[in-house]
């Protein structure tokens, strides 16, 4: 039993943290929000090159396939730092979901081509077609009148070279495809968090793009749902930490009644509540990463626990941070809203807290909590 990161893991996290702090301070996030679509694409490409130089996108891909050959335990700190920076690029989708999935499906030609796009061309991967609900993963992908498939809320399509898309047919079950961007019609979706890249993608169903179907695809989708929950939990932990820090810093500066508002117990207790919730979401999030890395039989439950705790922690941090900032926090001018908006999106993505509590309880009888 050694529940701690090793030195290399701490170092990797620090490297990513410093790189993001340097190249993507909150002023750059604001610029990104306010940039033209072309300007955004340029900024996003530059940031992705930086992440690629660090090896982050291919972190889980084996070295033999051109990646870093590291594990979810190495990745979790990187995702947390991405959350702290509210990084807009699809690092979660690429590094945690698509890339390791493609690596397990090598040498299938469509998987090899998609990985090449990631590792050689430095283009992120987009992911879509999987939702998580109380009955487990389902697909929002539908068939259009023209025979094309239509997947809403695909993350990262603007900059991706290849889209990893899932569909589920009531009769034949799941299919997983790696579809080249040029084969798709992409319709950007307006969302509250303008830094988040969501699109509806129309794509042709083709045997050439098929990665897996039936039982194999179902297992892949299940693992992606677990990684989606665990990875977004890590992102949310970073976001929560950032929002609590912003609010605590503000509470030390802002004066009312002749003293900093942070000296009042009413304000202290709001922030303490958020800090306590974060404190206890963190180890559960790291445990989920370990369970993924070591393929524990409890991995789905562990990912659900992490997501339930991290979603609640980040949602509370957002509420508290806004309240502590007062009216200024409600303005466009204050940086807080960038982090709140990402929180509101991610706390619901890959299953919200209540959904994951339901999933945990459904398994609670089968997997006793204490060692027995």
């Amino acid at each position, binding site marked *: 039993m050694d*529940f701690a990161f090793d030195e290399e893991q701490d170092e990797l996290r620090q490297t990513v943290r410093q790189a993001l702090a340097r190249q993507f301070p909150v002023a750059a996030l604001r610029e990104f929000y306010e940039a033209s679509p072309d300007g955004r694409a340029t900024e996003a490409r530059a940031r992705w090159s930086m992440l690629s130089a660090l090896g982050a996108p291919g972190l889980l891909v084996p070295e033999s396939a051109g990646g870093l050959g590291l594990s979810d335990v190495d990745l979790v700190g990187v995702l947390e730092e991405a959350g702290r920076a509210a990084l807009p690029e699809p690092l979660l989708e690429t590094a945690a979901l698509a890339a390791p999935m493609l690596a397990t499906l090598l040498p299938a030609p469509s998987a090899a081509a998609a990985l090449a796009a990631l590792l050689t061309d430095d283009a992120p991967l987009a992911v879509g077609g999987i939702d998580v609900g109380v009955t487990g993963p389902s697909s929002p992908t539908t068939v259009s009148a023209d025979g094309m498939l239509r997947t809403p809320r695909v993350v990262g399509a603007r900059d991706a070279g290849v889209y990893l898309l899932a569909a589920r047919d009531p009769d034949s079950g799941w299919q997983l495809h790696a579809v080249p961007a040029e084969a798709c019609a992409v319709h950007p979706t307006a969302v509250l968090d303008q830094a988040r890249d969501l699109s509806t993608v129309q794509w042709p169903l083709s045997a050439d793009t098929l990665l897996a179907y039936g039982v194999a695809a179902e297992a892949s989708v299940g693992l992606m749902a677990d990684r989606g929950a665990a990875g977004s939990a890590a992102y949310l932990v970073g976001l929560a930490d950032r929002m609590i820090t912003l609010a605590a810093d503000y509470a030390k500066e802002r004066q009312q009644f002749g003293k900093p508002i942070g000296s009042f117990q009413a304000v202290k207790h709001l922030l*303490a*509540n958020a*800090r306590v919730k974060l404190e*206890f979401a963190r180890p559960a999030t790291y445990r989920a990463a370990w369970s993924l890395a070591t393929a524990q039989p409890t991995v789905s439950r562990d990912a659900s626990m992490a997501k339930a705790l991290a979603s609640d922690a980040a949602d509370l941090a957002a509420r508290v941070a806004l309240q502590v900032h007062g009216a200024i926090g409600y303005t466009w001018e204050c940086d807080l809203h960038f982090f709140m908006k990402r929180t509101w999106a991610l706390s619901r993505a890959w299953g919200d807290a209540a959904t994951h*509590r339901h999933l*945990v309880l459904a398994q*609670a009888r089968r997997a006793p*909590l204490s060692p027995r």
Partner: protein
Amino acid sequence: MDLTFDAAHEEFRAEARAWLSAHVPREPLPSLDTAVGFEAHREWEATLFADRWSVVSWPIEYGGRDVGIMEWLIFEEEYYRARAPKRVSQNGIFLLAPTMLEYGTAAQKERFLPPMAAGEEIWCQGWSEPDAGSDLAGIRSRAVRNDGGDGWLLTGQKTWASRGAFAEWCFGIFRTDPAAERHRGLTYFLIAMDSPGVTVRPIPQIDGETGFAEIFFDGVEVLDNQVLGDVGTGWSVAMSTAGSERGLSLRSPARYTEAAARLVELFDQAGRPAGSADAVARAYIDAEAYRLHTYWTASKVARGHTVGPESSANKIFWSETDVAIHETALTLLGPEAELLEAGSPGEWLDGYLFSLAGPIYAGTNEIQRNVVAERLLGLPRG
């Protein structure tokens, strides 16, 4: 990162499990807040001690096994899994002992630790006073030099001393320098409850039992060798106990994971009512989050780090999780929740009453929130 236990840990677990399954009383003991129950629990401590299971993490010379923090957590998991009796010696072994091991003289450790481990001497805590609760530094009970001898005379009143009605010894904080400001001029004393001048007045709790007591000191003589740490340093010595109380040693996670597992059983027995599902899941997940946080912290301790103000976050979390688990259980029991079984509260009702004390004792959760805000988030003192 490795969240599995190695072979030595598993062997230790198996040994603890086997011993507990052979020795844990089949019938629950009477409540330890009664005279009869207190003695029954004391006997159980002697049984534990005889086979070196009462204080596994202590040095061998004082009755322990000198094992690490992970083994202690494993032992606790097995202890709660076996549904073994409550620890009547908990104030001594979990709160005083870590402080004594750090600050005590060799003679004090030799004199006090073995009988504490054996349950021969049960300790209560004499900290709170009628006018010094959350504001603990407002202590007014005082100690003055005993002109006639080599020691001190204690005068004042302590209250809310758990086990105070039946305990043999008390660890308390008294003001030795009346001119000093608040946190200064306090000294940590070890006092025999049968000393002349000690008067105990048991206080019935909301369940009617005398779980705690007021203690009056009227010129009680204590010797210099009954001072723990240096004279005038009582506050910092006491805070090391407070850290233990809020942090790792008082509330092991097994207590909550075990209660949460039983809560899920109760939920199943009740037919999995949809209205309680979310609360059950929340309690279950929070108990597990506490367990994981403890192993996270223990791994830091094993690497030589100390537990700091995080122990205040810990105290808030375990106490509120405990209330939530028991509230949810009572909801599942519905109209049966209020029934007294054979005149006493049932297990869940009893646990609920006890859980309600959690956010109050060991420093109220409001005080802990101040500590979290000031020391973890750096907010200015009010």
